[in-house]
């Protein structure tokens, strides 16, 4: 039996305890936020990053295989092939994302990369306090990404770019006279040798492994609490918001 939640309650009193989940009744509107290139880019990047993590660890050291086990005649070879193809896909998503910084809507453009107004920074700290459960009431709401999301997604973009640059610096070694090698020679020079390039590439993998559980969790959590279809917004492009709700960037 589904729980019936109806009528109007004294929310001012309820807020003192904790914020309840939004009651899934009332008047909602559907807001279209993410155009298909952004959604496609998200899922291609998600799949390729997962593939890159698994194949990357397999190339570096197959932790999840017993030491010295014969794993097939071309195991690392296949891992590298998948790694390089997924890397190409990730580069494609970067190109799409950069293009959509110019072509996208206000939630997808440059201004959505970082909190710019001082009030956005204040709201970001309110959001952090809300997540840390220091402040039970909900932080100021945004239709697009809130400032904390903007900052963390931009940081993960930067991580991806560093991964691509360091990855191609290593990849280019196979063809010393080639274009990729020539275009990435500055990378080992900047980082103090190819071993440091390898180290940076390896360590930053963990940035994804830290980002992914938090990102997936907070997305699901927002969907559960707001009941606005946050999760489906990265599939359909839009989400439901209450008609009477005010948004900072609405």
């Amino acid at each position, binding site marked *: 039996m589904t729980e019936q939640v109806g009528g109007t*309650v004294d929310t001012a009193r*309820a807020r003192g305890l904790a914020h309840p989940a939004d009651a899934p009744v009332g008047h909602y509107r559907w807001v*279209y936020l993410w155009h298909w290139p952004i959604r496609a880019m998200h899922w291609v990047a998600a799949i390729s990053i997962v593939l890159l993590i698994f194949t990357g660890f397999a190339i570096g050291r197959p932790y999840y295989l017993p030491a010295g086990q014969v794993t097939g005649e*071309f195991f690392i*070879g296949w891992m590298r092939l998948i790694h390089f193809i997924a890397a190409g896909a990730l580069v494609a998503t970067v190109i799409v994302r950069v293009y959509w910084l110019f072509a996208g809507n206000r939630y997808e453009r440059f201004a959505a990369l970082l909190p710019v107004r001082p009030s956005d920074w204040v709201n970001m700290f309110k959001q952090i306090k809300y997540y840390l459960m220091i402040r039970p009431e909900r932080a100021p709401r945004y239709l697009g990404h809130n400032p904390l999301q903007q900052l963390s997604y931009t940081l993960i973009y930067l991580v991806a770019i560093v991964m691509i640059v360091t990855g191609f610096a290593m990849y280019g070694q196979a063809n010393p006279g080639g274009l990729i090698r020539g275009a990435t020679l500055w990378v080992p020079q900047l980082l103090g040798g190819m071993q440091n390039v390898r180290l940076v590439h390896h360590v930053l993998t963990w940035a994804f492994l830290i980002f992914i*559980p938090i990102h997936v969790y907070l997305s699901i959590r927002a969907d559960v609490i707001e009941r606005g279809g946050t999760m489906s917004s990265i599939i359909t492009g839009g989400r439901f918001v209450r008609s009477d709700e005010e948004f900072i960037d609405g």
Partner: protein
Amino acid sequence: MLMPTSVPWADEESLGSFLERRRVSRREFLGFCAEITAILGLASTMAPQVAEALQAIKRPSVIWLQLQECTGCVESVVRTAEPTIGDLVLDVVSLDYQHTLMAAAGHQAEKALQDSMAANRGKYLLVVTGSVPLKANGVYTTIGGRTAKVILEEAAAGAAAVIAVGACAHWGSVQAARPNPTGAVGVSDIVKDKPVVNIAGCPPIGDVVTATIVHYLTFGRVPELDHDGRPMFAYGARIHDQCPRRANFDAGQFVEEFDDAAARKGWCLYHVGCKGPATFSPCPIFMWNTRTSWPIGAGHPCIGCTERNFWDSMSPFYTRMPNVAGVGVERTADLIGAALAVGATAGVVAHAAATGVHQIRARRAARELPVVSNAPPPPPPPPPSNPEGR
């Protein structure tokens, strides 16, 4: 093996007639030319051209400076594998100055250097092994009371070409590793006005030195160089891409410890610290000691000695990854990364649990609150325009 002889190569005599005088057969000479042509990566059809050019050359003058170094590079070059004619031409006959190999010593040796530089100004080949210390005005290496920097600058000024042999002359090698107490630098840090060929390696393979000099004598210019001044014919491919154990790498067959079964089977040394994937060198092809073996062939991982700053950037030599500076030897990057990822996941789980508790408490509280109005919801407002956001 051709030994030094009492029949010297006369100044205006061509190499061809000199070799004839030394009773070197035409077959032997062409064999040498074919080998050098192959080492230089030229088409085999170029061998007659190399032979023609080489037999016409006049006696070249080679001055070999040994600065701050261990003489290992000289040891390597005098063990040049096959080109015995190369030995003869380059190590024995043409060396006007090489203070380890030459018979003269002291003032006599220094006079030979001055005489040769004066007589062959602008024509001699300058080979340098060893780094140049710069701290404390260069007092860490002096020969005949003069510092390495002064000697090198003077010799380079009159040289036709400068060949820096070995990691010391390339960038300073072990004495330039942190903290570089003597301020050691390579030849190309001092000689800026003419091309410096870096024969990288600690020590480099002697054949590469010989082939570079033959290239210069044959074509009158230094071979094509990479971004770090190393000849492309030798340093144009990665050890990893030429390695006979590459098939084991691709198959995921790795040595994990030096005495394990995989090591005895000759599997890939990547996990015990092989730097072949970041090292450009012809070791797998040219090999060492008359093409007997080479480090990976003998079961030892490559330490990356042809790369700049390898003592710092390629160490520790027996682990695949560098240590994270300032954190300690044991705490490797993976430990920190795994700890953070596990911490993030644990935090997520704890946060989800806390959220659940909040939700249950909030809903219970909301249900207990009096409903102040049971009136039906107001009529829906007109649907707002769908903000595209543009």
